[in-house]
């Protein structure tokens, strides 16, 4: 028998006392003009995406939807204090979990302190290309994960099930380094999630099985796989031509619109430039919504080409 006496948890180590909120509208009526773009209502801040590394990355992938790279500083790195302030703001609004992204988060000189700060208060996911996972860093991640109240998730991005496909996007040697990172995390007792770009037309069940098999053969225990579609934004738009004028949600019948389907009803992204509707649209016109999180809690017109991809695939950038 397991017996547990509940005692109140300690108050958050940083940040103010939790602020009771009015009950949000769970079933809002979206402003949905006939022939116009559907308007995504905002329900609640479940996930906060923090573009902690800005657009700085050690790779310059040909399909990067925010055009990150070694010299890309359109969005600068967020300082530890700035991240802490955003997390505190989000906790006051009842946030469920935090995602740390970039660019490449492990380029950030304060990333370990930032992860420690945040994981003390909420579940954390770090999105990485997997190429900077040194032995010392993996050991630190494993120790931190074991000691934490909340899950520490590591998400490693892959773009194919072989070196040729992956490296065509990410550069020579990226596949070997990313797989080495995944194996190192696995051997340290962690359970990283590998996110694969789903080839157009691929059967999800068969492709997932292929991804799991490749990771298993490489030595990753209990492989966790998440598929993501390609977004024709940023550098990928330059490569493939982006979304055409007919690729939009304009005219979607109100009866066909499900206000619970898209993650932008339950998440926001912050960068050094402010608050954005989602991590995909940090560079897109109209993607920046506010200086404050609470100021961004309003409907968003689904007018971007990328919105069609999210809508069609039911994508969530969240782990599940």
């Amino acid at each position, binding site marked *: *028998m*397991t*017996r*547990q*006496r*509940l*005692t*109140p*948890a300690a*108050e*958050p180590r940083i940040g103010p*006392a*939790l602020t*009771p*909120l*009015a*009950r*949000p509208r*769970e079933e809002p009526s979206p402003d949905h003009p006939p022939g116009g773009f559907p308007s995504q209502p905002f329900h*609640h801040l*479940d996930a906060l995406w923090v573009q902690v590394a800005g657009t700085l990355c050690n790779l310059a992938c040909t399909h990067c939807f925010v055009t990150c790279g070694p010299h890309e500083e359109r969005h600068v790195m967020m300082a530890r204090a700035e991240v802490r302030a955003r997390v505190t703001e*989000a*906790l*006051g*609004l*009842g*946030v*469920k*979990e935090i995602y740390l992204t970039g660019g490449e988060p492990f380029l950030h000189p304060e990333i370990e302190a930032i992860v420690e700060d945040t994981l003390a*208060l*909420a*579940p954390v996911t770090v999105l990485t290309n997997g190429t900077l996972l040194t032995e010392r860093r993996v050991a630190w991640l494993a120790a931190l*994960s074991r000691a*934490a*109240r*909340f*899950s*520490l*998730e590591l998400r490693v991005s892959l773009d194919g099930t072989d070196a040729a496909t992956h490296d065509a996007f990410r550069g020579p040697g990226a596949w070997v380094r990313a797989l080495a990172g995944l194996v190192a995390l*696995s*051997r*340290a*007792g*962690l*359970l990283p999630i590998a996110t694969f770009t789903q080839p157009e037309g691929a059967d*999800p*069940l068969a492709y*997932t*099985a292929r991804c799991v098999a490749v990771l298993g053969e490489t030595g990753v*225990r*209990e492989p*966790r*796989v*998440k598929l993501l579609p390609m977004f024709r934004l940023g550098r990928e738009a330059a490569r493939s031509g982006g979304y055409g004028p007919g690729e939009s949600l304009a005219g979607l019948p109100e009866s066909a619109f499900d206000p619970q389907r898209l993650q932008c009803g339950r998440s926001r992204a912050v960068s050094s430039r402010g608050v954005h509707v989602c991590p995909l649209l940090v560079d897109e016109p109209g993607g920046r919504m506010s200086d404050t999180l609470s100021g961004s809690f309003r409907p968003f017109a689904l007018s971007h080409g990328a919105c069609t991809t999210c809508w069609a695939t039911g994508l*969530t950038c969240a*782990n*599940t």
Partner: protein
Amino acid sequence: MSPSGTRCERLAVFGGVYSNHLALRSALADISERLERSDTKRLDASGGGAARAWCLGDVNGFGPAPEKSLELLRASGVPTVQGNYDHSLGHALADCACGYTDARDERLAQESYDYTAARVGERSRAWLRSLPAEARIELGGRRVLLCHGSPRRQNEFLWDSACSDAFLSWLCDAHGADLIVCSHTGIHWARALPGGRHVVNCGAIGRPAHDGGTNTWFALLTASAGSIGVEFLPVAYDHEALAREMERELLPREFVETIRTGWWTSCLGNVPARERMRSLVPSA
């Protein structure tokens, strides 16, 4: 009399029966004995006394012969809130709406749902349709909200390691509850929050908790001066008999393996790292 609005000092809560009629029978007997000792003469909510039992839904799925569990639960008189599986069966939907995000999990869930849907009669479907999506009672003067997944969504997974205190506090505040009791994940946990609020996930009695044990779990909540006590109690049953019955019914062998080993072999796609790590052994 509607069970909602009733008051009690002890509350036995179980969920996720998943057609495990053997575990359900065992749990009901154990709960009955415990609540009898609490000066309650009946399991249902219409009698006097200070103890109550509730089922938090998902009566079916996963296991064999769904009507066995349905009949047993109805006969017990234990009030039940509706789970996503109950909603789907009651409304003859095409799938269980379990909320899986992994293609393999979805395939296995569909196989199980098709098996179950073909074996649930109209009387049971009407009963499942009639179940409330939530119930509100009082435990030691605290406002308790009973639901299947979360107060805001029937199939939302509330995992211990994936919910900040801030989020759970917001859920309590937004839904006017001092204590939220839920199920759906299949793994039990409890959290005390700042301000005296609590969230308890009672786990499942139909499937082991991915801990290597063949028993399943329910929760017993007791109000005492200034605090809520939570006990998670194991449900022992003849798991080998259930496994053999599942094999005879040609249910997925992955499900049978879980019953025999206590480790999940499916539905892991939604499980966060911390809960999944239970099954890892250190690398050599």
